[in-house]
């Protein structure tokens, strides 16, 4: 760990029990000023509980917390002015319109009338919501609700923005736009603490990533370092005219050092620890009357890292992503 005085957030051995259940187990990490820090894990891993402890919606059973160099364990109110919080559900007031919601949230941070009106206008413009500024929040689409909730989280220009699953349950276009807005915010100097179970989201946005499984932090590192660990793994996807299923035992016998994973009768994945010469493989298939139509090299991704480090089945993450 570095110097906690330089860290935007420094959590040390944070633990949270709900009766006998340990939701967060001695979690320690630092978030550097100005970075996007991803907190990645499946549902129930303890992400929301951790974010609740960091923001003041839950008290840790033990452990300590420093925000922007100040020890705030047991007195988080001191730090709440520097924080913007975007919860996993859009929780603004359905009976107020977009502008009123933003102005109300600004007033909670002590902003005066003129200042909050101007800031609300600026954010509505930035988030593309000016046209619906007078529409009740309850009548917004899911994507608009999410954007306005993020705007409400940054209305007071916080130094640290906490986002809990910011793109869960919204359409692809809105999710993309939200990621763009978050990247802009970070470029403007806001430290972002992001929890997500979308691996590709963490991959696109985060400078450093922490893996949380069953309340325990299993790894914290930069994206580059994490991916480097699986860079010696090579995966090639072969597409053929058909009959690959029948060829499986033949392929295994001919290439015993490679691992063949059948996706369908026309597609197969070949995993190896070394660069794979494709010509002998294609030749063998063609000799047996199978025409190879495509061979695609698949780069190692954060998904592979996650599976390797946590031992979690990829299917579990994917199931949880689709469930949310």
């Amino acid at each position: 760990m570095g110097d906690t005085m330089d860290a935007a957030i420094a959590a040390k051995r944070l633990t949270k029990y709900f009766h006998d259940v340990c939701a967060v187990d001695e979690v320690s990490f630092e978030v550097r000023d100005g970075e996007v820090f991803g907190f990645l894990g499946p549902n129930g891993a303890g992400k929301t509980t951790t974010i609740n402890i960091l923001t003041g919606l839950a008290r840790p059973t033990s452990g300590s917390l420093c925000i922007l160099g100040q020890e705030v364990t047991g007195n988080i109110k001191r730090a709440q002015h520097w924080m913007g919080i975007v919860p996993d559900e859009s929780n603004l007031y359905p009976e107020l319109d977009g502008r009123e919601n933003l102005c109300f949230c600004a007033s909670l941070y002590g902003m005066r009338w003129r200042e909050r009106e101007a800031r609300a206008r600026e954010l509505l413009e930035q988030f593309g919501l000016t046209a619906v500024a007078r529409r009740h929040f309850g009548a917004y689409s899911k994507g608009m609700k999410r954007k306005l909730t993020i705007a409400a989280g940054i209305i007071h220009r916080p130094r640290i923005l906490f986002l809990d699953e910011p793109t869960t349950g919204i359409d692809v276009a809105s999710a993309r736009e939200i990621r763009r807005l978050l990247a802009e915010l970070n470029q403007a100097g806001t430290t972002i603490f992001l929890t997500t179970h979308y691996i590709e989201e963490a991959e696109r946005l985060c400078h450093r990533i922490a893996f949380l499984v069953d309340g325990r932090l299993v790894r914290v590192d930069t994206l580059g370092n994490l991916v480097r660990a699986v860079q010696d793994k090579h995966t090639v996807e072969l597409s053929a005219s058909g009959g690959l299923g029948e060829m499986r035992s033949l392929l295994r016998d001919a290439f015993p050092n490679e691992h063949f994973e059948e996706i369908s009768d026309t597609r197969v994945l070949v995993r190896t620890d070394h660069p794979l010469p494709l010509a002998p493989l294609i030749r063998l298939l063609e000799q047996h009357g199978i025409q190879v139509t495509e061979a695609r090299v698949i780069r190692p991704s954060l998904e592979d890292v996650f599976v390797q480090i946590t031992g979690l089945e990829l299917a579990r993450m994917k199931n949880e992503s689709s469930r949310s």
Partner: protein
Amino acid sequence: MTGWIAYYSILRKDMRSYYLKPPNISWGLIFPLAWTLMFFVRSETDVDVRTLLPGVMALSILFGTTSMLAVTVTFEKRGRSFERLLLAPISLELLMWAKTSGAVFFGAVNAFVPVVLAAFLADLSGVIWWQLVLAVILVAVSSAFLGLLIAVCVKEVFEAQTFSNFFRFPMVFLCGLFFPIDQLPGLLQPLAYLLPLTYGADLLHEAVQSSGRFPVAVNLAALVTFCVLLFWVSLHRIRQSWIG
């Protein structure tokens, strides 16, 4: 200053979103009116309006404050918008005072509806106004804090409504508004002294008819104690269960 800007905004939003809605305004007017008429119709002889006034005022405050506050706080907690308030850099005490202020104001305004009606029907020149206003404020604050306590003890809006009635109706009959406490069965009399409305009703009787049972200072001290106790227990409960 940050805290007071937030306080004013929360109060203003609650007044707009909940209390100043047409159904609530009409409830605030119709409810005291209905109680007054009920007593007039029930009585076969001429009724002294001044005898009825403290009871009708107390009921208007009690029902106006507890029902609204218990429901609105539970509603915001369910919709998670209450989390937004808990995450704001203002003290929990100021936040909950802001949430209850709307109910206190609503209850106090409700209390003066029967006073305006009574002014047309009876001579109110003997009323001790400063005592009446103080009584209304203290009954409104203690009732609002009772509503807050109910709100922090339940999860669903329907539970808040049911739980409110569990407290309100026994309180109405035990607090000495309509039956003198010394005429209650012996077992129920100690219970009457444990209710904030007993002291509020007595203060109202004293202000309207100079017929209070306890000294004014005792009523004031009891009401202030109930207010502090209810507020403290509510905050403790919020800290335990909502910021767990």
